[in-house]
């Protein structure tokens, strides 16, 4: 039986009537056309589907859309404000921290959440905090560098 889920996505209010068992990822991508969150594992093991739900990083591929009722979602498309990039996006750009880029949106949102909780992470904190996100190009060194760079930006 379909249900109606109300949520705010990237600042816009949405009401979606759908099967509550569908994943938040599928609804974002297929119903709302937000393809920034990616499918890559379908079991919450790689972080490519990461979005912010009420400010916290969630894995949208294993989050039923019913759990998103009355929440505020930010996808990678909604992170930049008024055309200016978020400092973490800027840092990824400056560091050239993307190869194929398929993991990049998830990496950035995970890093945003990480830096909100811990604005001055050690290298160890970054590696631990990002360990749920896979990059198969194995561009980890530059991603790590970008997150460090973003942390330094916000320090100033």
């Amino acid at each position: 039986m379909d249900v109606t889920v109300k949520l705010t996505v990237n600042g816009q209010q949405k009401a979606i009537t759908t099967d509550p068992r569908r994943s938040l990822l599928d609804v974002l991508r297929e119903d709302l056309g937000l393809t920034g969150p990616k499918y890559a594992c379908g079991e919450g093991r790689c972080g490519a589907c990461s979005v912010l739900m009420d400010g916290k990083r969630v894995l949208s591929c294993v989050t039923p859309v019913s759990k998103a009722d009355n929440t505020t979602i930010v996808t990678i498309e909604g992170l930049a404000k008024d055309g200016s990039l978020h400092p973490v996006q800027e840092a990824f750009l400056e560091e050239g921290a993307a190869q194929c880029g398929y993991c990049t949106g998830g990496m950035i949102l995970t890093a945003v959440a990480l830096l909100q909780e811990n604005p001055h992470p050690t290298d160890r904190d970054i590696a631990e905090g990002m360990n749920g996100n896979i990059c198969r190009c194995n561009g980890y060194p530059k991603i790590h560098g970008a997150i460090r760079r973003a942390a330094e930006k916000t320090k100033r």
Partner: protein
Amino acid sequence: MTGEVVTKTSETKRSSPSEDSPCEVQLSRRAFVQVVGAGLLITVTEGISFGQRRGSRGVRNVAARLHVNQDGTITVMTGKVEEGQGSRAQLTQAAAEELRVGVAKINLVMADTALVPDDGMTAGSRTTPSTVPAVRQGAAAARELLTRLAAQQWSVDPGALEVRDGTITHKASGKIVRYAQLVQSPEIVEAFQRSSPAEIPLTPASEWGVMGTSVPRPNLRDLVTGAHRYPSDIARPGMLYGKVLRPPAYGARLESIDLSPAEAMEDVVVVREGEFVGFAAPTTFRADEALRAVSETATWSTVSQPSSDELFSHLKQHARSGRPSTRGSLERALADADKVLGATYEVAYVQHAPMEPRAATAEWKDGRLTVWAGIDYPQRIQGDLARALGVPAEQVRVIVPDMGGGFGGKHTGEAAEEAARLAKAAGRPVAVHWTRAEEFTWAYFRPAALIECRGALDREGSLVAWDFTNINAGGAAIDTPYNTANTRILSAGSDSPLRQGAYRCLAATANNFARESFMDELAAAAQSDPLAFRLAHLENPRIRTVLEVAARHFDWPARQKKVTPELGVGLACGTEKNSVVAACVEVGIDRARGEIRVCEVCEAFECGPIQNPANLVSQVQGCIIMGMGPALREAMQFRDGRIRNASFATYRVPRFEDVPKIDVHLVDNPDIPSAGAGETPIIAIAPAIANAVFAATGLRIRSMPIRLPGTNPA
């Protein structure tokens, strides 16, 4: 004819020969090329495809490679795909360099069979040695023709002209003209369409202004904002999502199936063509519901399949004979030698597991098929689709949006064909996105290898005999770079239990793992230092250089003295695809937990003149860490025709916490042509780790993944 395809940056203003819009759709191929040659318009009537010309050498005129737009931008066309290896930046640089314009002026159209020439498959590190020169040649020819025209118009010697920023200047007279002005001339239209002038000299590496610099990926911003549309992000009006029924095991045949549970679902399109059973529905979830409802009714016949436990005996048993390449007299050398060693190495099957699994969207319109897909060779898939769907190739257009990784694993177009079948039946566009489990199970694998080695030393500890047979994996980098008078080298086929194919650097990883491990065994038998033993047998100056660079920066002699049972160092080197690599590593051994941890990697790499240093660093770092996966953990487990670890939960790929301290040293070698660099840096890491494990523990682990005895698969 149906509509036109106009790239977003092209100018639509036209001059002769095609003044009126209605004429566009009736252009002959020749007229079409002329229009493109004018540099004012990219308008393609569907059905005309440059893709029928095979290989970069097929591009004989400037018009097929590029055109100059009225706003001064230049559209450059290539059949290569971008999948994270950096080809978009590199080819943009190549064109900008020879056209004497900034990279911002170049708009690179990649991998669209309606627009681009056939530059061959994106594979084998061929973009750098083949496509970069082809693009540079086209760009240099355009610059030359434009310069000649300016000289002719001004009645001056072309040698007196200066070309910079898309502007041609005659200093003596103060005359100036922009490319965009010149391309309005009918003469240039014709010149761009004629065969390119032969052998325009390319800018030597010493004079590069754009090549050789760290140009970022041109669409990088779209990657960090989520704006870029990958193959799995392509959506079309009215599109459905498809799912395909898979056999429960390799070799299983469909005996019967009841489609009625899916047919009862009003919003689901059910397709059966022979053994192909698929579903298209408004959402992925719904298509999956249909699939699950029907799967339960299917009955299958199965056949016995080898399991991963018996893989290597199976490969050995089915090894085919072949003709080895030989030098000297191996058997006599073995008989006369002071010491003879033999060892057998094993390399497991692994998957590429790119972040983006296979994905395609297909759309039919008036009998014509357009497919957006994540594949490595648009022109080949165009042909494959035409055969599979029974339409002429001219009516098939394949577009490859920059995609989410490949690593050699996307040479085939399964999802494209599935989407095309479903879309045809549904009468609507259909997207097929493989799941991770499908990608792990039904994509092809890197071949497993069984490698048998024999080697012999004389009294002085010199290598006098080398016998090397790779069963199943292939012959990439199978030849030894080490001096040995008597050799026998063979790549033997076998019966592969899994579907196998290309992977970053093919069999070079397996062959280098065995060779460089075995060289370490021989060095130990000769009571020689692994570095000294290699250098004593190595003439290739390029390999010697990277080996010495890596060893120096790693501080090899001092680090060797610090080896303990818990901390080992090892090194390895090699060459493939005309580039050279050496790595020194330090590993930590945790015997209680049975763990090998790579603490540090120092790798030196040389591929000729460096075209993009930042991208090259990314490729080398990526190869090192990617290579650590199959070196330490990755291995397909299978039984009864089923993959038992078809997920990221059960198949452990490298993660942040696995990343060691990495020290990359790029050696620039301007004296030779640039070689590709996306693959070879992967081949040294596994043997260097195995050698470091030996240094610490005295245990020679002769299999990939390298695991301490008694430990279970990760």
